């Protein structure tokens, strides 16, 4: 799935930076340097950013401005990082937290 807009009728080319690779639960995905990690995941159709604490239900980005914390993931070993605010850097390792990030 590719959800990138690419060429926008008003905003023009929506490329946001150099193409790099980041790893989501060990699998490589393409991402643009500087865009939020949550946007890079969404662009390739990864909408689940965590599993709920008790029932293990999928949760995904809800506010995209750092309020709701549904997109909090483990990044380079650090838990509870709001991926909608965190800019992509080459080689980042993003893990889907299962239950409470620790």
């Amino acid at each position, binding site marked *: 799935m590719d959800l990138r*807009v690419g060429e926008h009728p008003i905003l023009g080319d929506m490329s946001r930076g150099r193409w790099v690779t980041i790893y989501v639960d060990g699998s490589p995905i393409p991402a643009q340097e500087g865009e939020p990690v949550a*946007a890079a995941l969404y662009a390739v159709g990864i909408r689940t950013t965590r599993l709920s604490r008790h029932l293990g239900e999928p949760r995904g980005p*809800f*506010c995209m401005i*750092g309020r709701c914390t549904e997109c909090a993931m483990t990044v380079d070993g650090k838990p509870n990082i709001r991926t909608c605010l965190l800019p992509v850097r080459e080689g980042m390792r993003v893990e889907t937290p299962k239950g409470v990030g620790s």
Partner: protein
Amino acid sequence: MSLKRTAAELVVVGAGPAGLCAALEAARADVKVVVIDENHLSGGQLFKQIHRFFGSQHHGAGKRGFEIGEELTEQCRKAGVEIRLSSTVLGFFPGSELMVDGPDGVYLVEPEAAVIATGANERSLAFPGWTLPGVMGAGAAQTLVNVHGVLPGKQVFMAGSGNVGLIVAYQLLQAGAEVVGIADIADRIGGYGVHAERVRREGVPVFLRHRLVAAEGKEGVQAVLLEDMDVKGRVKRFKADSLCLALGLTPMAELAAMRGCGMAYQPDLGGFLPWHDQDMRTDQEGVYVAGDAAGVEEASVAMEEGRMAGISVALDMGAINQRQAGRHRADILRRLKGLRGGPYGQHKLEAKRGIFCQ
């Protein structure tokens, strides 16, 4: 643990239209201003607005929202305002200390004055399936598509026909998504006719008097269910991979409450907000409020309220005199009156009067 502690003349929390305008007015009066915002871009929610604003020249009519945000940021920088981005204000304590989590760690700031211009949160609604990936705020979808260039889905359903719902639906179409429909429980479309016309011209169906029943799907949204309010039990099912909620905004005024500002509940302005007067002073000395945090209206109003707050700060600090303040004040009040002139604005004005008079 002892944290680094710094002093400041004026701290503005929030680099949106209200905060930037407050900073600009105060800086023009030679007040030293620090603006703090948790985003990595300045401009607040202006940076996701790609439609042209209407209104007067003074509020950037004809320009797109993000252009207004860039201009205000540039003007602030020229006026000597320091804008600290990627910095979250964690707390505002009764001794007037702000705790900030910045790129280099957590620190305290003790300002002589503070303007709370933190904006608003999107309202949500709980219904079966609302936690599924693919259900998100309309503002979230707008950020995703207009700032990051990523669609929330290929087939999007919009709940809510206010201006945000209509504008975001149109912007999703512009970016190449299909908008399956727009639903509202009300009898009439909530937003301006000009925005409604745009989506209707594109053939997007609007379902009025329809209730959002559920979102269905396994790993994410696959369908949206509506109930026709006139035919009880008639549920319509729409195939969609994303559901946006445009259900209004609520002031984000927790910092004011934490600081000890008296709070009021005003449903027409979005919920709880700090008491304030026409000059944007709260009931706590040295604490001011502006923009959506002082009651949800629109960006042009936020800019005027921000200017007013900046002028009140400058006056209270002795950086300008009564006569200088009075001139600016009269201009701002005149423009605010104009902005709150229409039937929509009138409603807001009444609600605001209820706040001012107490």
